[in-house]
């Protein structure tokens, strides 16, 4: 039945129809396993979260043995929960400064400056930036905590940054304890800039060189060329980049968790708060409600992104 409903503009010619139907049947059969896995293991937890976020499910106590239906209580609690609002604020600050401002701007700057540079220089510089992006999250966190280690009262030997500070006869700091937010923002800029850079570089490649040369001959300064030729032509790439890094930053967890141990209120992202509620305070229902909110924010942004880009299929 389902197959029949999908046959497009059925032709009276029986030969054609049966061939089409056979193809569609094969097609559906081909797509089935992928759709099944995605439905069960992606939509599954999403729907599950909807269900358990309406219960008081927990890993210990009353909610453990017999989770009870609590309606929208979890959601009402979320919006009155100071720590959640704090996490929301932290996540947004982290998103705006590390991704939207830091990664996107630095990525664009690198892509622009690297145009027409010496190819060997370009591949070495590009390589270094890309390594920061492809190494595993935990390793990146590990690199940064050793880089920022030490400080005036620390028993550990100073990390490179404090060594540089003392060489320059400037005071040492316990960076991650004194400026946690700034440090995770810088670490995330370091880590994620490569993605924006690569995207912008491939966007820039599509801009015809003649156009820029003609403008230069007409006396347009580099700034004018950037503003009235390059940026308008990169609009699609910029929108793609901003939305992709927004969505990936929203689900960030590892780098910040590894750097801060996950228990610093100043750097508690929504994902970390969710993790703590669910697995340190064992409030699975409440944690799921937070997860659902993150997904809803992501879903809205994702739809926005498809709209803005007006993706043609």
């Amino acid at each position, binding site marked *: 039945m389902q197959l029949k409903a999908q*046959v*497009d503009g059925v032709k009276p010619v029986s030969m054609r129809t049966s061939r089409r139907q056979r*193809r*569609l049947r*094969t*097609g*559906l059969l081909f797509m089935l*396993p992928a759709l099944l*896995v995605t439905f069960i*293991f*992606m939509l*599954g*937890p999403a729907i*599950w*979260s909807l269900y*358990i976020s309406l219960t008081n499910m927990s890993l210990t106590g009353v909610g453990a043995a017999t989770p009870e239906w609590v309606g929208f209580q979890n959601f009402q609690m979320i919006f009155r929960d100071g720590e959640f609002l704090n996490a929301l604020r932290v996540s947004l600050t982290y998103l705006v400064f590390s991704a939207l401002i830091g990664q996107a701007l*630095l990525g664009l700057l690198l892509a622009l400056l690297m145009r027409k540079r010496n190819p060997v*220089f370009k591949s070495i510089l590009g390589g*270094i930036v890309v*390594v920061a992006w*492809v190494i*595993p999250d*935990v*390793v990146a966190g*590990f*690199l940064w905590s*050793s*880089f920022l280690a*030490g400080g005036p009262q620390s028993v550990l*030997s*100073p*990390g490179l940054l404090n*060594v540089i500070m003392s060489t320059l006869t400037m005071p040492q700091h316990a960076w991650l304890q004194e400026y946690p937010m700034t440090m995770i923002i810088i670490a995330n800029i370091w880590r994620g*800039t490569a993605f924006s850079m*690569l*995207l912008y*570089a*491939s966007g820039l490649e599509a801009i015809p060189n003649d156009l820029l040369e003609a403008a230069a001959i007409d006396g347009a300064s580099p700034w004018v060329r950037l503003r009235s030729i390059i940026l308008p032509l990169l609009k*699609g790439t910029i929108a*793609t980049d901003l939305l*992709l890094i927004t*969505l990936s930053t*929203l*689900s960030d*967890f590892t780098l910040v968790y*590894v750097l801060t141990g996950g228990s610093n209120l100043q750097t508690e992202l929504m*994902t970390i708060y*969710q*993790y703590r509620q*669910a*697995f340190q305070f064992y409030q*699975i229902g409440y944690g*799921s409600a937070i*997860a659902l909110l*993150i997904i809803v924010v*992501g*879903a809205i942004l994702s739809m926005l992104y498809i709209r803005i*880009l007006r*993706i043609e*299929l």
Partner: protein
Amino acid sequence: MTIRRFLLATPLYIILTALGLLFLVPLLWPILASFNPVATLALEIPAHPSLDNFVTIISNGTVTQPFTNSLILGVSTMLLTIVLSGLAAYPLSRYQFRLKRLLMYGILFASALPVLALITPLYAMYTTLNLQDTLQGCILFFVASALPFSIWLMKNFLDTVPFELEEAAAIDGASTFRALWHVVLPLAAPGIAVVGVWSFLGAWTNFFVPLIILQSQNLLPASVTIYSFFGAYGQINYGQLAAFAMLYALPAVALYTLVSRFFVKGISGGLKG
């Protein structure tokens, strides 16, 4: 003209070199420490550089179990993702049917969701399904979260392989399977490579999912073990930890380098639709 260009370019090179150094500096310590048998958190050029750290962690078995687990997670995720996304992308690229547009939008939408945030409900679901504390559980979630974007990429790569080639092979008497195997597959190889590397690395580097789904010590992948090593501040051998981190990061860097040529093209081309 040449002088002017030189004068213009030099400050740019200086700025770029400075930026490059900023990116390089945090990478220096683990590289130097991994070759230094007496490494501390401080950056120092090893007095007697050697491969001792690597030899020790490989021969005393520190590496074996976590790397095997990571490899199982990575390779299974990769194979399943390639096969499932390849199968699903083929009809999406070749046939026209009524729900196709809607399906493609759905796939695109799903590929952008911050799925990893779903870890808490996933854990609750897995306790019911008995998939909690199993590698299969992690793999299935990795595959499911990698599939939407992989299908999207794979479809775009398949679109670049002309259908006429398949038809020509069919006219020459090749079966559908033979046509796929000998004609489509080689031409779609870059797409398969990108999807494979991307899904492998997704599983290989993931920390959050195994941290929550797995509890048994003997199932933990390298990402979680390295974190628990690191948590034991002070009492650890920094040189060996750095060597472990280097070994763990190496496949990511190597595989990415292998497909980097197609990677950005695949992603940006894929996004333009």
